[in-house]
């Protein structure tokens, strides 16, 4: 009897990312004639890439079906692992095993769906956006490579494997930001992204090695650093290491034993990776510059998927931050809570004054990622992941809309030269409005549910944190509607540039993403008792929380007070943006930007110049490089030159002294020879053993 499709996808989980990887290698294979230049070649490239990700999406849907309909079967779905290094016998204390594997569980299935669905829609859109670009096939190859790397990261069984794919998605990001490498701004942006991410990855790797060193003895050589499965789990190992006396561990080095202080240090170091990848303060500076890449890549990598990898890592390895000895607080989670909340607020204030449509959206992404981290740190694991899920769809749609606007405006990205585009591209305008309403937390749309969940949890965790996130919700509504009004309403300010609508290949994907942007938030509501839930009376299970959770699912009734506060903030932001940018009752230039009050105009410049982070970093880097240069200059002057000049001086001095012995008289030479032989004879006579 033939196996059912469900049996096939669950027994061969690795196939989920293999086609995308194969497609990338086929397209990049140097032997193909005209693959990058002919119409047929380009069609083959895009078909391979889109076909691979379409398969991945179907596979993910079947996995979701399997997980939702038959959890008992999936419970025994052991991670697949291929070992490539083993020391000691499996099961013995101290044995070490490194391997690559595939781990499919609830959390990874959710991420697989996000990555494959957004990637599929973006790749279709790419056909419309990049069709005139000579690098069309190369772009599809990079897209496939990125998708495969991201899927590999999602299904990694251990942190070392995850780090490997983490670096691969970083490389793909570098290639894609610098896709138009002939532009100086693009080449500088990709280098900046690469360098900033390496700083974060350096901390990640040090933390990872410290964690492995401190817990190596407890893995018993099986399924290293995996989170579920038949072997030891991360949570179990950490708890065991913390309760066990350090003397029982293999190492006597205090840095390699797992004290609570060491675990806090490790958790902060590992968080450097997510901090860079998900553009959190202070490693956030690369993401807005990454908008130099083509817009499809901004939507896929720098809005929906890759930047969410940092959030996914924190969720995947949540025990690293969450496990603490009984009665102690988690400094790791407190650190994440501070970074996430501060980044959410800071990025929102910057987004309020940007004029480049893509960069404003990039700052909005930085802010929303801060919300996700704040949610995870505040204890709402499911809320943080729910916001990641919802945000991926509406932010990808918003970026694709901005790409449609840029395409329709013949490359113009400055919102001051737009306006009134609603009548030229109504489909794009409607989708942008849906995304704007969703991210602003408009009741009923997806962002409303997940953001309120996070703000409520943050308020319970720390009132100041909740208040900052609530205020940021107001800023979010303001800057998003500022973008909407400046771009789609009012008078057209583009001068001689005539805007046009986009081809169907670019408009249809927007419609596909609009569906989850409207509806996905309702997955967080128990539909059978929705009214009771909204009233705060029902704690019935909702579909998303029943699927994505940490240890055990947790259901709460809605918090009507917090929902009201969040909605009020959103409405105030929308109304203020409408008054300033549509009704023009208030002028920002008169009141703030061009104000004679130095404080007000200074605040505006501070926001417009992105809190001067780039300037501060370059200032500090210049000083650092000057110190480095001065130190090497001194070393060169006194040590290197000293050795070279000193050896010459010694030779010259010796020559000067010895020249007096070279007098040309045979008697003198005979005297020297005789003296030497006499001394040698005496030495041998007296000191011979």
């Amino acid at each position: 009897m033939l196996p059912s499709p469900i049996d096939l996808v669950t027994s061969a989980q690795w196939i989920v990312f293999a086609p995308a990887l194969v497609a990338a290698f086929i397209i990049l294979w140097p032997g193909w004639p005209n693959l990058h230049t002919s119409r047929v070649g380009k069609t083959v490239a895009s078909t391979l890439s889109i076909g691979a990700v379409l398969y991945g999406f179907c596979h993910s849907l079947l996995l979701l079906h399997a997980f939702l309909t038959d959890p008992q079967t999936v419970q025994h779905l052991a991670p697949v692992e291929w070992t490539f290094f083993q020391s000691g016998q499996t099961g013995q204390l101290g044995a070490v095993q490194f391997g690559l594997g595939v781990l499919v569980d609830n959390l990874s299935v959710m991420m697989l769906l996000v990555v494959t669905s957004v990637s599929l829609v973006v790749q279709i859109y790419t056909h419309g956006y990049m069709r005139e670009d000579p690098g069309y096939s190369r772009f599809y190859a990079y897209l496939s490579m990125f998708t495969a790397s991201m899927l590999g990261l999602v299904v990694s069984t251990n942190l070392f494997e995850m780090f490997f794919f983490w670096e691969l998605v970083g490389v793909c990001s570098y290639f894609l930001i610098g896709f138009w490498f002939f532009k100086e701004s693009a080449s500088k942006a990709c280098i900046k992204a690469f360098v900033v991410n390496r700083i974060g990855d350096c901390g990640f790797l040090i933390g990872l090695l410290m964690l492995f060193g401190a817990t190596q003895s407890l893995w018993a050589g099986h399924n290293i650093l995996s989170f579920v499965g038949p072997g030891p789990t991360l949570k179990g190992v950490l708890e065991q290491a913390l309760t066990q006396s350090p003397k029982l561990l293999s190492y006597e080095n205090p840095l390699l034993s797992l004290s609570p202080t060491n675990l806090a240090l490790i958790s902060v170091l590992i968080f450097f990776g997510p901090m860079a990848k998900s553009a959190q303060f202070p490693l956030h500076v690369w993401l807005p510059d990454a908008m130099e890449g083509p817009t499809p890549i901004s939507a896929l990598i720098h809005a929906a998927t890759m930047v969410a990898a940092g959030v996914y890592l924190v969720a995947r390895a949540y025990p690293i931050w969450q496990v603490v000895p009984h009665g102690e607080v988690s400094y790791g989670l407190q650190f994440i809570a501070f970074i996430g909340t501060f980044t959410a607020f800071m990025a929102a204030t910057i987004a309020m004054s940007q004029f480049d449509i893509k960069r404003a959206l990039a700052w909005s992404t930085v802010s929303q990622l801060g919300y996700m981290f704040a949610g995870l740190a505040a204890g709402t694991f499911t809320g943080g992941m729910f916001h990641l899920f919802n945000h991926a769809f509406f932010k990808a749609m918003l970026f694709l809309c901005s790409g449609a606007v840029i395409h329709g405006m013949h490359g113009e990205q400055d919102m001051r030269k737009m306006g009134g585009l609603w009548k030229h591209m109504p489909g794009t305008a409607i989708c942008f409005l849906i995304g704007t309403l969703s991210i602003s937390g408009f009741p009923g749309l997806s962002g409303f549910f997940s953001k309120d969940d996070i703000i409520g949890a943050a308020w319970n965790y720390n009132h100041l944190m909740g208040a900052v996130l609530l205020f940021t919700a107001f800023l979010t509504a303001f800057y998003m509607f500022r973008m909407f009004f400046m771009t789609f309403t009012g008078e057209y300010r583009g001068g001689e540039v005539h805007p046009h609508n986009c081809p169907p290949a670019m408009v249809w994907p927007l419609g596909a993403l609009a569906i989850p942007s409207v509806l996905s938030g309702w997955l967080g509501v128990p539909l059978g008792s929705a009214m009771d839930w909204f009233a705060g009376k029902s704690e019935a299970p909702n579909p998303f929380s029943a699927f994505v959770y940490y240890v055990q699912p947790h259901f709460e009734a809605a918090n009507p007070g917090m929902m009201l506060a969040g909605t009020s903030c959103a409405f105030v932001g929308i109304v203020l943006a409408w008054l300033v940018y549509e009704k023009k009752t208030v002028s920002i230039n008169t009141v703030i930007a061009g104000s004679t009050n130095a404080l007000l105009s200074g605040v505006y410049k501070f926001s417009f110049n992105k809190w001067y982070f780039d300037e501060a970093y370059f200032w500090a880097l210049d000083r650092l490089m000057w110190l480095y240069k001065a130190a090497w200059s001194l070393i060169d002057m006194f040590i290197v030159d000293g050795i070279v000049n000193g050896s010459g001086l010694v030779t010259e001095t010796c020559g000067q002294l010895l020249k007096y012995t070279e007098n040309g008289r045979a008697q003198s030479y005979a005297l020297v020879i005789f003296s030497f032989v006499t001394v040698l004879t005496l030495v041998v006579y007296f000191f011979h053993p």
Partner: protein
Amino acid sequence: MSKSDETHQSADVHDDAGHGHGHDAHPVDVDFVDETSGYDRLLQLVCVLAGAGLVMMMWLFVSSPITATEEHNFENLPPAHSAQ
């Protein structure tokens, strides 16, 4: 300095937006620009499939027996991260 609207940038504010980036900055390949080809229509069909897949994803979540159960018994669910 314009006082009328923020759409006119303050003169003393450094503007780094729009430094040469943009969709039109690359050379154009005019061999592949037919927007009404059969391939484009095929991709529109795939796009419809993607939308249908997203609807199906939400339907699978909503119709899941996990949340349909009255007993709310989650003890038999696969633990996401817990030690086994």
